[in-house]
């Protein structure tokens, strides 16, 4: 008989070198509390054990794995094509990006390249998805901090993107939009008009979000100098995406190692200076505008031609391994695929941005208030489906 798994939070924190509580006239005791796994502000099932001195955080420990489905194990028992829809279920608010990364990785392994038209369709849908992901982040993050209105605004506008997805491939969230070698579906009648309509529709809406928050006194108080992280710490902890950029590192895989058709478009990489929650907010707002810029260029220049490269029906990539990564809305999303020459991958390793970024939570919240933990979890923009896989 094994002992039941311990649920005592103290056991988890025993290894941390935690500071002593401040001596005050009240002689407060250290308090260890559980946040989650069922907690609305953890964006899923994340359990954070907090060690507190009054309201000050002395240390944290994340307990994850509640959504573990063994995606990497499943991959070894499916063919390359069969595994394609599974990747959508990791970061389920940015399913299109997941699919793009996976398809491109397998294409590299097979040594095929998607046709130009397919690449453009991929860019348009992926950038729309980045926008949808950032909108969802903004709505929930603001709700956590106490602003309820942005949630309704962002969900209202995100709907327009999901409608385009639905018209394109029939699904709104887990889209399975791309196939290995290109796209399965040609754009529907009126796709370009829909996208263009959205491009005119979105900018004033982003202005609207900014009006609500950017100079809002309460928003500033809750986000300025909260959860600050330096560029050095970001790199040491492997943090990528908007969090890294808000700390002042101008690094985006779309520019650094361009994939799909990104080298053909003109766009900026927004960066911040302080690396606090407010800067991360500004970076993501600007990223939304840059995404619109990319979509506009792509839709204007979309070439004619085939949408699917010649790929064998039974895919047997030659023996070898490949690492391919893309700039997902949350950071670097990588696929490490090992082929043994058969129809099934020998191993697929997913390098999830949320998992690695979540590791930075501890140093971001030490010395801050309990309420800031909520703000920092929100600003890291994690999706537990991807953390736990």
């Amino acid at each position, binding site marked *: *008989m*094994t*002992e*039941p*798994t*311990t649920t005592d939070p103290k056991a988890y924190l025993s*290894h941390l070198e935690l500071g002593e509580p401040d001596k005050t006239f009240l002689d407060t005791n250290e308090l260890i509390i559980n946040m989650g796994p069922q907690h609305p502000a953890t964006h899923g099932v994340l359990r954070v054990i907090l060690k507190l001195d009054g309201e000050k955080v002395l240390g944290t420990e994340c307990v*994850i*794995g509640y959504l*573990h489905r*063994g995606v*990497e*194990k*499943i991959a*070894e*028992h499916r063919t390359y094509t069969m595994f394609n829809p599974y990747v959508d279920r990791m970061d389920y608010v940015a399913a299109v990006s997941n699919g793009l990364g996976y398809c491109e990785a397998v294409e*590299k*392994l097979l*040594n095929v390249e998607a046709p130009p038209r397919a690449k453009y369709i991929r860019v348009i849908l992926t950038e729309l998805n980045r926008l949808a992901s950032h909108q969802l982040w903004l709505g929930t993050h603001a709700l956590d901090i106490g602003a309820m209105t942005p949630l309704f605004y962002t969900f209202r506008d995100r709907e327009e993107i999901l409608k385009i997805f639905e018209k394109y491939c029939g699904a709104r969230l887990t889209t399975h939009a791309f196939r290995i070698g290109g796209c399965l579906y040609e754009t529907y009648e009126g796709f370009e008009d829909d996208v263009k309509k959205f491009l005119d529709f979105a900018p004033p809406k982003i202005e609207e979000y900014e009006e609500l928050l950017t100079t809002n006194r309460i928003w500033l108080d809750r986000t300025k100098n909260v959860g600050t992280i330096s560029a050095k710490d970001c*790199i*040491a*902890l*492997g*943090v990528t995406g908007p969090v890294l950029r808000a700390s002042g*590192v101008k*690094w985006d895989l779309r520019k*650094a*190692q361009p994939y799909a058709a990104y080298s053909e478009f003109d766009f900026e990489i927004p960066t911040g200076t302080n690396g606090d929650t407010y800067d991360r907010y500004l970076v993501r707002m600007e990223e939304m505008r840059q995404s619109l810029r990319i979509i506009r260029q792509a839709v204007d220049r979309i070439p004619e031609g085939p949408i699917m490269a010649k790929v064998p029906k039974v895919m047997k990539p030659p023996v*070898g*391994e*490949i*690492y391919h*990564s893309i700039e997902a809305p949350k950071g*670097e999303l*990588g696929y*490490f695929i*090992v082929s043994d020459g058969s129809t099934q991958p*020998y*191993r697929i*390793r997913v*390098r999830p941005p949320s*998992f*690695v970024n979540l*590791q930075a939570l501890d140093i971001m919240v030490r010395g801050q208030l309990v309420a800031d933990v909520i703000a920092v979890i929100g600003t890291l923009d994690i999706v537990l489906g991807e953390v*736990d*896989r």
Partner: protein
Amino acid sequence: MVSKLKGRHGTGIREASSYLGQNYMVVESSIITDVLQVLRDQEQFDYCVDVTALHYPNRERQFDVIWILYSFPRNERIRVKTMIADGETLPSSVSIWPTANWLEREVYDMFGIRFDGHPDLKRILLPDGWKGYPLRKDYGIIQQDQEWVQINLGIESGQ
């Protein structure tokens, strides 16, 4: 870079090559810490992208452990690979890149490979009391720790 490392370690660098335009090297497990340290300090590989493993049950040294590194100044990637047998341990790379903390924990969780000097080596995705390492090839896809499921969840099967 490779010749510099070879000069330092001689035959410890077993292979340095590239496949589909991606560089990788295979090194002996005894010099892995030193190689990683040199790559970070002298070759500017300042960002550890991923640590992962592979299982080949029919080989004498069953496991490949792989570090995927990236250099911001050079805009380059490299994979460093080493082989170990079941039950052997590897030195932890947490002191070189703090990000390796959770990544090594996941390798331990899924493959049962231990890292010496890791500050807190325990399971990360699976519960603490779980038996078995799911990403080993001899672990079946529907296999699970029945006993753990019965005690902790109070049900016959988690399926």
